[in-house]
């Protein structure tokens, strides 16, 4: 479904000692961040507000340093391209960014035009644009919205259209910056479900999200940030049961919380659960043995 294999030997995204300070800001937004993202990963980035998550996202598709200017040190490579040396538009087919506010991402008067907007900007053949529009309308279940004005859609529907519009550029990595924070729980769950589905189909995803309880089970890696730095990076089960989460005030899934309390009282379950089902299975195993 997605294009693969352009620069297979390099990591998909590489931050090399990357620091950034916004013009007019007092402190660095990112401090010497080093990070590599490989093909097929589903990375969840979380941390308190102002920790640099959004700047990290912007650095992946070149908005930092081309749209938001400021002091910069180190490099970011996406698909082997140094983001300093290419424009945001040139990076668009490599890294797609979905934003927090769905209303501000929909700039045309109907869904078809919206999905076509990106490929049209890049000069893709009209017949190919038509194919992509139909493909993503189908994939994200937008058929009933086709002719609607963005104003007539709910937040969740708008965000789905925004995702389709970003995916129409056929990026190798989809970066989503808190795509669910303006949505009701049900729509949020739907959006996160779509992301997980895409990841299963082979799409690399970087997601900034607070509601770890909803996504911990899908993620392949969790990155905790604080004060412009990556403070912890590892698989979700390790990360969520570590003390760093508690220190940063990051909400962890209920099941993991219960697990940790049981652990404290001396009950060993062996594995860190991320969902209620996993927890009940582990408890059952423990009580049987």
């Amino acid at each position, binding site marked *: 479904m997605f294009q693969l294999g352009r620069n297979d030997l390099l990591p998909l995204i590489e931050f090399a000692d990357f620091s950034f300070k916004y013009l007019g800001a007092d402190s660095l937004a990112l401090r010497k961040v080093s990070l590599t993202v490989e093909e097929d990963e589903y990375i969840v980035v979380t941390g308190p507000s102002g920790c640099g998550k959004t700047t990290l996202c912007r650095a992946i*598709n070149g*908005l930092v340093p*081309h*749209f938001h200017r400021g002091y910069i040190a180190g490099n970011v490579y996406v698909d082997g391209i140094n983001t300093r040396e290419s*424009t*945001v*538009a*040139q990076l*668009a087919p490599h890294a*797609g*960014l979905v*934003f927090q*506010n769905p*209303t*501000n*991402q*929909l*700039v*045309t*008067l*109907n869904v*078809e*035009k919206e999905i*076509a*907007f*990106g*490929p*049209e*900007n*890049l*000069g*893709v*053949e*009209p017949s190919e*644009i*038509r194919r992509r*529009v139909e493909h993503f309308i189908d994939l994200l279940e937008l058929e009933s919205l086709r*002719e609607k*004005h*963005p*104003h007539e859609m709910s937040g969740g529907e708008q965000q789905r259209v*925004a995702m389709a*519009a*970003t995916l129409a*550029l056929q990026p190798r990595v989809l970066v989503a910056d808190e795509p669910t924070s303006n949505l009701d729980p049900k729509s949020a769950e739907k959006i996160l479900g779509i992301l997980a589905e895409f990841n299963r189909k082979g799409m690399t995803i970087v997601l900034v999200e607070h509601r770890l309880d909803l996504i911990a089970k899908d993620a392949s890696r969790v990155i905790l940030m604080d004060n412009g730095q990556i403070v912890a990076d590892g698989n979700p089960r390790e990360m969520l049961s570590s003390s760093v989460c508690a220190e940063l005030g990051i909400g962890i899934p209920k099941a993991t919380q219960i697990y940790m309390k049981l652990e404290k009282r001396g009950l060993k379950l062996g594995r860190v659960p991320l969902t209620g089902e996993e927890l009940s299975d582990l408890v059952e195993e423990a009580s049987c043995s």
Partner: protein
Amino acid sequence: MSFLEVFQYTRQDSPIHNIDPRAKLVMSIAFAIISLTFINIVPLLIFFLFLVPLIIAARSLRRWSRSMKGLSFLLLFIMVFNTLFSTVPNPFSHSIALTLRLICLMTSFSLFFLTVHPDELSQALIQMRVKFEFAFAMSMAMRYVPTLGQEAYAIMDAQRARGVELDKGSLLSRIRGIIPIIVPLIIVSIRRALSIAESMESRGFGGSENRTYMEQLRFRCRDWGVLAASVLLLLLILYLRFFVPLPDWVLWELPY
């Protein structure tokens, strides 16, 4: 403001809707010029009777008549005002003609605006060599009008909740009451504009010299026909008006 409805696009499937917007633009302008050519009741009435079937063909008669009803106060005002203050020999006849002319003019332009989707309009402009950025700015304005409206209401509610009285007091204090609405609205809009720009940039806006378009407007035979017919009609009317002595019945006026 119900009379503005006649300039608002409505989605319909009609022969008028299907004409290419460029041909329709020429047609509307030709009709408008024709409306301005005469200042006598009879020719304007004939032209009006010619326009009404076109409105019917666009399946917009109801919307059109609603607009005209909304406009009736203004029309009446024009009629009375002109009858009383005009210096022409037969002011009553003259003012009726003026009113008819305004109706014809509005109907001519509404044939365009009622039936051209904003997207079609911007695509037409692009294909008429207007820069994409300008045409797109226009369609984006259409896109964000309802959003801004909603925002304005939210700000009004917020200010009311803090005790700002927006609909009380003298005219002056009401005008002053606009300030606490306008200032936050501008600030919010600037922020929104930045966020929109970020999103557009991320999707390659302005990235390629050779922007493509999923759909291009095509000028078909029918559109050439509409174009030719409009221009011919205009030329014919102009010829009749300026080079042929008009018969008496055309210049007929109400008895004074």
